[in-house]
Structure formats: C-alpha cells, structure tokens
C-alpha cells in the first residue's frame, strides 16, 4: 500500500467519473430517441446534428433554473437526499471491471512501478455483495426525499417506492446466489473468468436466475413496468415532486446511472462479461481491448432493452407488484439455489 | 498477538468501542423516546462488534468475525420484534415515550 497505488486509483476514479457522467447524459438522449422510434415519431433533432447537443442543453437548463425551496421543509434532509441517491449510484461503479488487464509499455511500467493496468478500480473480496449493499443504501435517498418534502403525496410515493425496493432486494440477492455457486467466488473478475467456457445464461440455473434477476432489476431501478411510485398519473411524480432544477437533475442522473449499472451487472454475471467469444484472442495483448468492445456492446444492448420494455409494457398495480415480489419470485429463487447446487455438484465437478 | 492492525494500535480500536458503548449507555439513560432508546442499544451492540473484530484480527482467529456475523443476525431479529412491540404499544397508548407508559405504577 504505497502512494503510487493511491495515485493510480485516484486517476482511474476521476476518469471513470467523467466517462460515466457523459454516458449517463447521452443515455437520456438515447431514451428520448428510442421512445420516439417506438412511438413512430422523431426524437430531439434540433439541438445539434441528430440532437447530439441535447444533453448539454438539458444540463444548462437544469443548472440555470431557479432553485425553489418549499416552506417548512427540513432543509438538511431535503438537500442531502438527492446527494445520497447520486453518491450511491456513482459508488457502485468502483467495482465493475471493464476488461481484464492491459499490459503496459515498458517505459510507462518503469514510471509507475507495475506492469499491468487493471481496468477495475477496486476488486474487493466481496465484489457482488458490495453492489447489493449500495442498492440497500440508495433506499435512503428516496425515503428522506419523500419525508422531508412536507407533502403527503411525496411521503406516500416514497413509502411505496421504498417498500418496493426493499422487497425486490431479496429476489435480487437470492438469484445472485445461484451465479455465485456456479462461479465459486464473489469477486466480479473471477465470476467473469468462470464464464470462459459457457456463459451462465445458457445453463439451467443460470437461465432461471437471469429471468428472476431481470424482473428484480426493473423493480430495483423503479422503471416501468414497476414504476407506480413515480408515475406521472399516480401520485403527482412521487418522491421527487417538490424537487426542481438541479436537485431533480441529480435524481434523474441517479436513476439513469442505476440502469446502466444494472445492465453492466447483467452482462458480467450472465452473458460472459468481457470475455472475447470463442477465446479467439487468448494471450494476445489486444485481448483486453477486444474484451472492452464486446462488453460495451452487450451493455448497450441491455440498456436498450430497458428503454424497449419501458415503452412497451403497461404498469403494474401496487398490490400485484408486491405479490410478484414476495409470492412468486422468492420461492422460484430459492428453488433455483437448490438446482444450482445440484448442477455444480453433478455436472461441473467440485467447486474451486 | 499483533498490537497493530493496519497500522493503528489495537488500543485505539478498543477506545473507540468504549466511547461508542458509553454514548449508547447515555442514550438509554437520558432519552425518553423508546425508538431512540432502541437505537442506543444498537450502538452498544456495534461497539461490542468492533471489539470482537479488533481482537479477531489481532489474534488471527477467524471465530471473532463469525461471532459478529451472528450478533448482526440476532440484532436484526431483535429489531423486528422490538419495533413490532413498539408499534403495538403505540396503537393502544398513542405514545412511545417511556415515562407515559405507566399504567402499572402504584
């Protein structure tokens, strides 16, 4: 643990932060273009060629709008809540591996002291549990926003949304257990390496886990078909009713960043992550770069599927939503754990 | 037995745990809101967790971390039952302040 490593971590984090914010901004543009395509109209195309400066225009609008504080809100909680949402959305990017290791050129290796650049900011021993922990924390942003707004519709929306999110954390975690059993480790880089032979989605327990995980993933990010708590015709807008301008922009960014994070997690856990298919470039120094390319393609596909599902399916009513979470997904996830254990023992040999 | 865990002496961890425990005891003694008393009890449990893990890392025995895992599970169970009792009391007496729940006082 020396200061060299800390400097490299700081540089990686800073670079990743800027890349993520830009990706999130263009994701909002992509959402509007895809929505327009599904609804048979044109999306934003005025702000630049093909509307490419639209996120910049949105950003300027959010920054320059007047900040309105409702009377009699608890100022501290009102301002902290969007901060918690955005912080948790950004924190979960620190463990996602974008590729393997890039071997450094000799001159750079002498300068920094190590020979390979790991494309992951941190690789703790409990990789995937860290993501579950961060999604547990993001509940606080919602509940503090709803409570501190001094508005009964916000509070109702916040309580419904919180109950939905904590209910769907259980199928999320339980479906991950099947994947962890098959991979033999919690670290995301090792889960990815365990998929060099066959992607986990093509195995029976992995497929069931993928179905459960994708349903829980929509509920965790408060997206349609599970967005009763923030739907516009329901409870005004739910917990972010009283938030305008930049604070609303923070909630907005947090939601889209959560969607991209979940897409990355789905590709890492079920669809082979950054493995180059058929092991073509094994051992070559371009392996990591090709891996990044395939990873990004898969993430873009899942991000597109979020938008596709949103503009296709109708919304669930609240009691059917809780019914699915507790009475259908959790028993299937538990059965899946047993199936996964049987699969690991009898089909793959012993773990580890 | 190591006296340095990640570069910090073991006694610093023990002092932090003692401070948290003392603050928790103060919370139980001074406050009247039953939920805040419950939260102070959780503070005390966390202080004990910190001591367990500090000694586990210092002596190299993994049993301390396993005990902490069980303490967390038990604290979760205690939270569920304790808050259920508070909700039931609030339904009848419309208060959770412990000095107003005095029907059995002579």
């Amino acid at each position, binding site marked *: *643990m020396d200061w060299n490593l800390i400097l490299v971590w700081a540089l990686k984090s800073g670079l990743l932060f800027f890349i993520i914010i830009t990706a999130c901004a263009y994701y909002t543009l992509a959402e509007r273009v895809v929505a327009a395509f599904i609804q048979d109209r044109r999306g934003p195309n005025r702000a630049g060629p093909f509307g490419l400066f639209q996120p910049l225009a949105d950003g300027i609008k959010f920054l320059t709008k007047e900040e309105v504080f409702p009377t009699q809100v608890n100022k501290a*909680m009102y301002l902290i809540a969007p901060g918690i949402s955005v912080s948790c959305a950004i924190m979960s990017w620190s463990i996602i591996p974008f590729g393997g290791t890039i071997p450094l050129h000799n001159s750079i290796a002498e300068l920094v002291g190590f020979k390979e650049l790991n494309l992951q900011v941190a690789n*703790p*021993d409990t990789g995937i*549990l860290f993501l579950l922990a961060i999604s547990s*924390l993001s509940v*606080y942003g919602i509940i503090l926003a709803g409570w501190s707004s001094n508005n009964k519709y916000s509070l109702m929306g916040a*309580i419904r949304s919180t109950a939905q999110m*904590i209910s769907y*954390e259980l199928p999320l975690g339980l479906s991950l257990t099947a994947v962890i059993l098959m991979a033999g480790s*919690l670290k995301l880089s090792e889960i990815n390496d365990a998929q060099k032979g066959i992607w986990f989605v093509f195995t029976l327990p992995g497929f069931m886990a993928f179905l459960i995980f994708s349903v829980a993933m929509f509920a965790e990010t408060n997206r349609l078909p599970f967005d009763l708590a923030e739907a516009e015709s329901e409870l005004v807008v739910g917990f972010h009713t009283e938030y305008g301008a930049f604070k609303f922009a923070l909630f907005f960014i947090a939601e889209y960043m959560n969607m991209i994070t979940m897409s990355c997690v789905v590709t890492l856990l079920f669809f082979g992550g950054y493995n180059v298919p058929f092991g073509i470039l094994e051992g070559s120094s371009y392996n990591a770069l090709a891996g990044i390319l395939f990873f990004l393609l898969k993430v873009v596909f899942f991000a597109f599927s979020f938008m596709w599902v949103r503009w296709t399916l109708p919304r669930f009513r609240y009691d059917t939503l809780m019914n699915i979470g507790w009475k259908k997904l959790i028993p299937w996830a538990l059965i899946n754990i047993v199936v996964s254990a049987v699969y690991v023992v009898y089909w793959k040999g012993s773990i580890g | *037995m*190591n*006296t*340095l865990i*990640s*570069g*910090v002496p*073991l*006694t*610093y961890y*023990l002092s*932090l745990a*003692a*401070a*948290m425990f*003392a*603050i*928790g*005891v103060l919370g139980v003694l*001074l*406050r009247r*809101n039953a*939920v*805040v008393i*419950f*939260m102070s009890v*959780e*503070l005390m449990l966390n202080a004990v*967790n*910190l001591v367990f*893990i500090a000694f*586990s*890392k210092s002596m*190299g025995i993994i*049993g301390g*971390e*396993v005990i902490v895992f*069980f303490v967390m599970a038990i604290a*979760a*169970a205690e*939270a*569920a*039952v304790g*808050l*259920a*009792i*508070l909700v*039931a009391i609030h*339904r009848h007496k419309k208060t959770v302040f412990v000095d107003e729940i005095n029907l059995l006082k002579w």
Partner: protein
Amino acid sequence: MPEELQPQSILFFILSGVCIGSSLAVVLHKNPVISAVSLVLSFFSLAGIYAVMNAIFIATMQVIVYTGAIMVLVIFVIMLLSLREETNLEIWRNPVKQIAIVFVVCIFGGILVASMNFNPEIGNGDPIESYKFLIQNGQNSGVEVKGNTASVGASTFLQYLLPFELVSILLTVAVIGAVVIAKRDKLNQS
C-alpha cells in the same frame, strides 16, 4: 509521520471522528428522524473502519444488514407513527441525569485506562487470511481456504454449524413473532 503509519490509518482517524460525532448526534438530538439518520451515518463509518481493518466481509454485512435493513425498518416506524420531538430534553438541569452522565463518563474513563495499560506480548505480525479445518475421524483430508470471505464462510459452515442453524430458527421465530405482535386485532376496533 511514524514509520508504521500507513495511508489507511488516516482513514481510521477520519472515520472514527465521524462515528463518534454521529453517535453523539443520535443521543442528543431531539428529532427522532435526525437521530435515525445520524445512526445510519455512524454505522456506515463503522463499516468503513471494518474495511480498514481488512474485515471486508463483515464490513459489507454491516452495510447490508444494519444500514440497509434494520435502520430502514426504524425509519419506517418513526415515519409511520409520526413521532413528535422530545421537548423535555433538559439534560443540564435534571440532577438524576447529571449523576448518570458522570457515572457513565467514569466507566468510560475506566475502560480507557484499562485498555491503554493492556500490553500483550507482540507476536509475529502477518495477517494471514486463510482458514484450515481438519476432519476429525482419522482421515487427513481437510479444508483449507484462502481469503476473508472464504474463511468466514468455511468457519461458519464447518466449525460453527450448530449456532448457524440455531440462528436461522431464531430468525424464523422472530419474523413470525413480529407479524403476530404488530397485526391489527380483527375483532376489536383497530
């Protein structure tokens, strides 16, 4: 800078300051929601301290179980019961409370002095994260795992299996008990 001070030691001091500050806010603030949020901050900084100590599994469990589940339950209860602020928090005038504070500070001072005088023999300093479990019916095969999570998991399921099963029964009993206690009476008025 002393020679054993590593960069993560600075993190320990910052996090312990946050921890003590937010614990004091839990105990002394009159609004129960602010108390609950301060307790969340205290638990989160404590999870950070566990991570500095290399107990990464317990740090993650602290965030998932304590901040992510127990404190959400506490905040729900506070909000749904609409608890009012505590108005008579007169610590500095009530003599019984003053005696209580002095007593607790004395106990804390005693624990502090005892822990400062605790000088065990220094052993060999490498924190090896591995766990070995020997099966005791004569065969030589055992289980050896490396890494913090693997060690805690192997230890739980091999050596401490009975407490694990008992805790699972206890959690089931607690869930059933909580539902039964907090349910509304259908016969009487609610």
